[in-house]
C-alpha cells in the first residue's frame, strides 16, 4: 500500500441528522480518525447537488465524500435515495470525462456509528491515495 500522502484533502459533505451526528459522536468519544477531512454540514444528503462535488474538486480538494443516512432512516424519508441516484449518474459522467472514479465517494453512516465513520474515512483516504493528489485543474487556467 503506497505511503499515505498526508496533505490530501477530502471534502466530506455530511447530512446533519445521521452522518454529521456520527462524526460528532466519533469526536466526542475520542475516536482518532485522519484529519484530512473537511466536514461540510448539509440538512440532508439529498440537498447535495453534483455541482458541489465538481466545484470542490475545482477548488483543489483531492476527494469528495457524500455521506447520508442508511436507506430508510432518512429524516426526510427519501433524501438519501435521491442523492444515491444523482451521484451514481454524476460519477459515470465524471468517469467518462476523465476524473478518476475514486475521487467521488458515497457512504451511509448513522448517528450511532462512530466506528464506521472512522473506517469510512480511512477507506476513502486510502482509495483517494491510490490516485494521488488532484492535478486535474492544475493547468489550463491561463
Amino acid at each position, binding site marked *: 500500500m503506497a505511503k499515505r500522502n498526508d496533505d490530501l484533502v477530502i471534502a466530506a459533505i455530511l447530512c446533519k441528522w445521521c452522518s454529521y451526528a456520527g462524526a460528532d459522536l466519533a469526536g466526542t468519544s475520542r475516536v482518532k480518525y485522519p484529519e484530512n477531512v473537511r466536514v461540510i454540514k448539509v440538512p440532508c444528503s439529498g440537498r447535495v447537488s453534483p455541482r458541489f462535488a*465538481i466545484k470542490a474538486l475545482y477548488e483543489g480538494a483531492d476527494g469528495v465524500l457524500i455521506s447520508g443516512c442508511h436507506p430508510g432512516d432518512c429524516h426526510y424519508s427519501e433524501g438519501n435515495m435521491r442523492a*444515491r441516484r444523482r451521484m451514481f*449518474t454524476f460519477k459515470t*459522467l465524471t*468517469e467518462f*470525462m476523465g476524473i478518476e472514479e475514486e475521487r467521488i465517494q458515497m457512504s451511509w453512516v448513522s448517528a450511532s456509528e462512530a466506528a464506521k465513520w472512522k473506517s469510512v474515512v480511512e477507506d476513502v483516504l486510502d482509495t483517494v491515495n491510490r490516485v494521488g493528489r488532484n492535478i486535474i*485543474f492544475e493547468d*489550463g487556467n491561463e
Partner: protein
Amino acid sequence: MGMNEEIGRIAGDLFAKKKIDVFLGYCHDEHVGARPIYISSGDTDLKKKIEQLMFDEHCVMSLPGFLGRLRGERVGIVAKGCDIKCIIGLLQEHQVSRENLVIVAVECDHVKWKGEEMDKCKYCDVHKPDFYDHIMKGARVRDNVTADKKKKIFSVLEKYEKMTSAEKLAFWKKQAKKCIRCYACRQACPLCFCQECAAQQNVPKYIPDVANENANYMWLMNRAYDLAGRCTGCMECDRACPVGIPWYLLNRKMAKTIAVNFGFVSGKKENIGKKTPLSDWSEDDPDKWVR
C-alpha cells in the same frame, strides 16, 4: 395534395377557427433550404405567410425551443418525430400545457445540415410519429427503427469508454479548450429552459465565466449532467456549436447510463405525467458502490 399545401390548409383553418394565436412552421430559405417562420394571428400578411409554409429534408431546426417564449398563447407547431420527443419532454416537465398546443406532426425520412444527413436520423425510431393532433403522411419514409437497432446509437461511445482516465481527461480538456462560451448549445436546446442558468449564477458561482480550459470543462460537465435523463437526442446542440464540440457523446453517455440503470428512455408518449428519472428514485438503484 402535397405536404406543403396540407400544412398550409391546416394552419389556415386553425387560424380561421380561432383555435391558435401563433403558428410555428418552416419556410423556404435560399441558402440553407429552410428556416423557422413565426405567424401570429395579428399579422397583416397572414395569407402570404401561410403560403410559405413547407416541410422537406432541410427543416432541421427544432421549433419546440420557442414554446417557452409563447407561454399563455395557443400555438400550432409543425413537428417531426424528434421535435415531438422534445415537446413530450416539455409536457412532462409542465413547461407547456397540452391544451394550448396543436401538434401538426410530419412523417420525416431524414433531415440535412450542411449537405449531410444528421447522425440521429440513422437511429430514428419516430420516422412515423405516434403523438400528434394532425399527421402529414410523407412519401418515401423509412419505418421506425427496431429497439435493438436503436441501441446501436450507443456504439459510438465504446471508443471513448475504453480510453484510460488520463486519455479521457486530455480528450475532454482539448474539446473544452475550443469552447468560446457563446452558449449556442444551451440556447438551441428545447429542454434548456432555466430562467437563470448555472453558468450565469454568481451567488454561488459554480461555473467560472472566463473561457479558459478548466472553466469550459466545468461548463460541459454541468450542462451534460443537467440534461441527464431529459435529453431526447435531437442534436440541436451539436448543430449549433460553432466550434464543433461533441455534445452527442456526453448526451448519449448519460442516456445510456439512465436507460441501463434506471430503465427510463426520454421522449416517449407514456412519460407524460411521470417524473424525470433524476427527480425520482427507487429501491433497486445501484447500491454496491456506496460504502
